[in-house]
């Protein structure tokens, strides 16, 4: 099949721009066999439909919240993951060779790792220069001499490979510290299968799932104890990390807990996870935290991402890490020139995948070569840090830049290697509506498996952001592609394998990690705060609108009280209570818009939306796809509303927000499967509702403002608490204070009443883990019981009697104040009891050396 005849119009562009090795066509311009089925399906689908599907694909990624955080991005931290609908195809024969080359390399690196931290034969026998290791910041002296219990020290290995113009495959980077991308690969595949099912019917693509099954089994098998159900956690630096999405995705895909450093602690030479039911032993940590950050006691002192004392547990052999600490020494590109000799030494094997010609500048001859040929080489630092780019294409530098680079190398030559530059092959990519060539690099993933390594049959393909560039990085805005290994067998569906499902079920029974609990609690609080604030704001705006033009003095008095109440209610002082700015009550719109839109304004709606998104994001594996879509729509609220300064649009927007929040709250019960999680979320909601209810009563109903005002206020109060209809239905009479109080404070049948909320809280608390003694209640339980009792024994008649002089409902005010102060302590006590991760860590030093 000649490509020119079939999709000429589209591919003309692609072919003419082709600068390097062509992944599609042979020398005669004929399509390579392994692409044939793809293009046949593509043709059947039609370009138009392909483009159309791509829109669905992008939408799906966005809705699923697939993101990649870009450091220092002023527009907000997360960016939707870029996936090119055009996959990267590789035929099985070629893949087999790459696979065996990668396995061989993983073995070799494993041997080097164990040697460097163990017997040290390579350095002693002159196969590795000592300076290359000892000058590398990734060599952790604290990790030497720790015995390796498993066959492999290196559990996970990733390599970036690319093809040079002559068709050879080269390894560009070795990633051993905390290799990322396997989760994105899986997500890419899942999205592609969903959007382009035709391709997977016709094209024989290898599945990825076996890799994850093996990964799960391997994690189980490296557990130090003989526990058949070891507790495995994924340690993440947190939501601000660039690949946080993947951490959360992987932990949920593997059915393990996602934790941050302060979720864990060291005690009795074991690692424990803090849960709301106490401490639980952790056996295996799959880590995404760089090694020097993992233990502030022995490694980087100011790290807040690690677990103090972790290395002691590792030395005691009571926890296994994938990968072990110290692995980043293997990411040292200075090793490259020595790999073949080391392989000869250990196994006598030729490297199947050759390494790019590289010269380590720590040797005089090599240094001279690099300096003499500087302009044509890529210069790399042996240690990678996020602050500076570790790779420099010297040919792109000005003469001043070259001189600077030369000086840097001369100053500390051992920190640099020079490497031959290759042009990566290119593949068709769908860019800006065209199909264009892009340079391609492919990351593969390997995991230790019973003494050998298994490679994912696919991986993460990444392409450069423009046709000429050979620097490929997600930080620089590159795109990813799904990677298809074309075999002779048909694609089978990617259902999670059996043991994964079992594992998942098991993990769901584990106690809730305390950070997760806290985030869920706060999601609950913010959800009701947003809902209640939006409802009240809407009611106030409607009141102002309804009176506009023909309002009496009484009405304008009511309006002022309502506005002041808005400030109390949202806790956004001084706002309408500002004694120095009386103007604000005359013309309230500026303040109302600000409360609605200003994300920096504490207590404002936008601010609270930001807060709920932050908490929700930290526990994203708790939300179903539908729930997540609603949360994403809140984000859109945030983005779209900046220019909105129109009352009707404002009300419309509040309506939408309220609908979203109601939907979100409604979905939680079904989507949160873990009982304690839901209890905490709902407790957060109930506490928030109780406090808000009291605040509103205090600001609207503890003062007699005259009959007409009072009527309006009670109506506002009932309507913004979704209870006006209920009132009318229950009492079938006009609004009276004593009945309003009955309905909203004392009527247990009314789900919006304070007594109902408190009784629910009491029941929730009983279902949460108990304290150390069975017969002693937690303090937050006692507080709720106290509040219930105070409410129940209140003298109701007195509550509706106002003082004839001050016009205050003194007894009501006292009752509400008392309840408020009791209930305000509840969240604090919950936090003290359950959220144990919140303790801050501090260094002790005895630095009196003179």
């Amino acid at each position, binding site marked *: 099949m000649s490509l020119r005849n079939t999709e000429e119009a589209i591919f003309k562009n692609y072919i003419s721009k082709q600068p390097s090795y062509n992944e599609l066509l042979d020398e005669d311009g004929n399509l390579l066999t392994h692409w044939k089925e793809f293009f046949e399906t593509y043709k059947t689908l039609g370009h138009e439909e392909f483009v159309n599907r791509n829109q669905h694909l992008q939408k799906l990624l966005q809705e699923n919240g697939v993101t990649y955080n870009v450091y220092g991005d002023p527009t907000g931290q997360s960016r939707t993951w870029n996936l090119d609908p055009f996959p990267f195809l590789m035929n099985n024969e070629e893949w087999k060779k790459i696979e065996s080359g990668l396995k061989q390399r993983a073995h070799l690196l494993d041997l080097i790792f164990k040697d460097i931290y163990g017997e040290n034969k390579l350095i002693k026998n002159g196969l590795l220069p000592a300076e290359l290791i000892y000058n590398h910041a990734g060599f952790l*002296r604290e990790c*030497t001499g720790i015995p390796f219990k498993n066959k492999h020290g290196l559990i996970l290995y990733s390599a970036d490979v690319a093809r040079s113009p002559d068709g050879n495959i080269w390894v560009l980077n070795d990633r051993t510290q905390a290799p990322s991308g396997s989760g994105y690969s899986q997500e890419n595949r899942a999205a592609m299968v969903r959007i382009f099912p035709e391709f997977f019917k016709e094209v024989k693509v290898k599945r990825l799932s076996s890799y994850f099954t093996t990964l799960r089994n391997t994690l189980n098998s490296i557990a130090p104890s003989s526990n058949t159900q070891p507790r495995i956690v994924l340690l993440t630096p947190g939501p601000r990390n660039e690949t946080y999405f993947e951490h959360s995705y992987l932990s949920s895909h593997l059915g393990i807990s996602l934790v941050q450093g302060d979720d864990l602690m060291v005690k*009795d*030479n074991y690692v424990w996870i803090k849960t709301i039911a106490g401490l639980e032993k952790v056996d295996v940590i799959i880590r995404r935290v760089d090694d020097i950050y993992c233990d502030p006691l022995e490694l980087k002192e100011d790290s807040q991402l690690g677990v103090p004392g972790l290395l002691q547990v590792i030395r005691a052999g009571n926890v296994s890490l994938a990968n072990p600490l110290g692995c980043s020494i293997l990411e040292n590109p200075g090793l490259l020139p020595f790999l073949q000799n080391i392989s000869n030494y250990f196994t006598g094997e030729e490297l199947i995948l050759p390494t790019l010609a590289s010269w380590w500048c720590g040797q005089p001859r090599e240094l001279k070569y690099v300096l003499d040929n500087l302009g044509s080489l890529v210069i790399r630092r042996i240690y990678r840090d996020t602050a500076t780019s570790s790779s420099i294409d010297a040919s792109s530098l000005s003469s001043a830049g070259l001189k600077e680079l030369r000086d840097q190398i001369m100053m500390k030559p051992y920190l640099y290697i020079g490497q031959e530059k290759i042009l990566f092959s290119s593949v068709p990519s769908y860019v800006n509506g065209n199909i264009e060539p892009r340079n391609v690099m492919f990351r593969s993933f390997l995991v230790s498996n019973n003494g050998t390594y298994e490679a994912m049959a696919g991986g993460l393909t990444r392409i450069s952001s423009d046709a000429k560039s050979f620097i490929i990085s997600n930080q620089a805005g590159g795109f990813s592609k799904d990677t298809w290994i074309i075999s002779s067998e048909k694609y089978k569906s990617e259902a999670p394998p059996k043991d994964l499902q079992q594992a998942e079920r098991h993990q769901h029974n584990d106690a809730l990690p305390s950070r997760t609990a806290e985030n869920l609690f706060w999601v609950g609080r913010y959800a009701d705060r947003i809902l209640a604030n939006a409802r009240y704001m809407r009611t106030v705006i409607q009141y102002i609108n309804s009176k506009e033009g023909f309002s009496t003095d009484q009405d304008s008095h009511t309006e002022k009280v309502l506005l002041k109440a808005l400030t109390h209610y949202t806790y956004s002082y001084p706002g309408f209570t500002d004694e120095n700015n009386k103007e604000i009550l005359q013309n309230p719109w500026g303040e109302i818009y600000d409360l609605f839109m200003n994300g920096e304004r504490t207590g404002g709606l936008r601010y609270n939306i930001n807060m709920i998104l932050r908490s929700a994001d930290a526990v994203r594996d708790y939300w179903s796809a539908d729930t997540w879509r609603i949360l994403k729509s809140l984000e859109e609220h945030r983005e779209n509303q900046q220019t909105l300064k129109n009352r009707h649009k404002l009300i419309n927007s509040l309506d939408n927000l309220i609908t979203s929040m109601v939907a979100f709250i409604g979905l939680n019960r079904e989507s949160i499967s873990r009982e304690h999680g839901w209890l905490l979320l709902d407790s957060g909601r109930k506490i928030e509702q109780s406090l808000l209810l009291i605040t509103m009563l205090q600001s609207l109903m503890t003062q007699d403002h005259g009959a007409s005002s009072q009527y309006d206020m009670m109506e506002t109060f009932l309507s913004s608490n979704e209870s006006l209809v209920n009132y009318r239905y229950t009492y079938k009479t006009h609004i009276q204070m004593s009945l309003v109080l009955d309905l909203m404070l004392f009527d247990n049948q009314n789900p919006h009443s304070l007594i109902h909320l408190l009784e629910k809280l009491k029941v929730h608390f009983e279902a949460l883990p108990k304290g150390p003694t069975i017969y002693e209640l937690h303090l937050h339980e006692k507080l709720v019981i106290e509040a219930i009792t105070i409410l129940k024994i209140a003298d109701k008649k007195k509550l509706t009697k106002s003082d004839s002089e001050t016009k205050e409902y003194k007894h009501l005010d006292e009752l509400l104040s008392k309840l408020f102060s009791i209930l305000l302590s509840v969240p604090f006590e919950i936090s003290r009891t359950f959220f144990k991760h919140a303790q801050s860590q501090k260094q002790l*030093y*005895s*630095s009196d*050396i*003179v």
Partner: protein
Amino acid sequence: MIYNISHKTKYTYNEQVSLCQNIAKLFPRNTDIQKCIKSEITIFPEPDVVNEYEDYFGNKSVYFSLQKAHEELTVTVNSLIEKQKDETEISLIDQLSWEIVKGMLYEPKQEYFEARQFIQETGMTSSNQAIVEYTLKSFIKGRPFIEASENLMQRIFKDFKFQPGFTTIATPPSEVMKHKKGVCQDFAHLALACIRSLGLPARYVSGYIETVPPDGKEKLVGADASHAWFSIFVPNIGWVDFDPTNNMIPSQKHITIGWGRDYRDIVPLKGVIFSSDSHKLSVEVDVRRA
């Protein structure tokens, strides 16, 4: 000569601390001229976990963890040390110049290989142009390594003011060089930065020094302190110590605890607690002839 050393560290917290983990490196090593007869650690309250091990440089390390709520922590190490006569006569006549030493270290010998680990600068011993220039005034062409180092020690002693409180653990040598002030640890780090900047091996030594009270006065209990100096590696001779704070070659009055590339490798006592509140620290060191 036999010394009794008592080193007591006390932390008082402002609030109860439920978990406290520490690593102590306070146990004098055996050296050519020093024998550690005993060295015992006493921790109060009683720790729940104690792990004893040797670190990468062979220094004895004790990890301990207190897992019950406590308001103060006292760590006392009592050591008994015997100093032996220094037999090595260092003759300046047939000594190697620093340039020759630099080249020799790359010969394949185990001890050279060990010494080369102490050439690379660390965060605490980084150099700059000013430091290199300062160094080269002592390291003149062809000068024996030992003589140049001794000269460097003397110049640091003369040019720099001993001033506690001016620097912190985090003050880099460039700042010390600029202000010409600091304490023993700064002078040791500076000397290391100097020597390493020329590609020569030198290590940081942690220890004690016996202080002598002014004439006629009784020595105050607990008036001593931890001390630090530096040591260079010379082929055929081994490690040779220099104390730039006191301008002397350590011998009978210096007691070595251990060594590393810099302070960070041999922090006498460090720990992590979970607390949001502050704490008070008091240290008493006593070095006495037995």
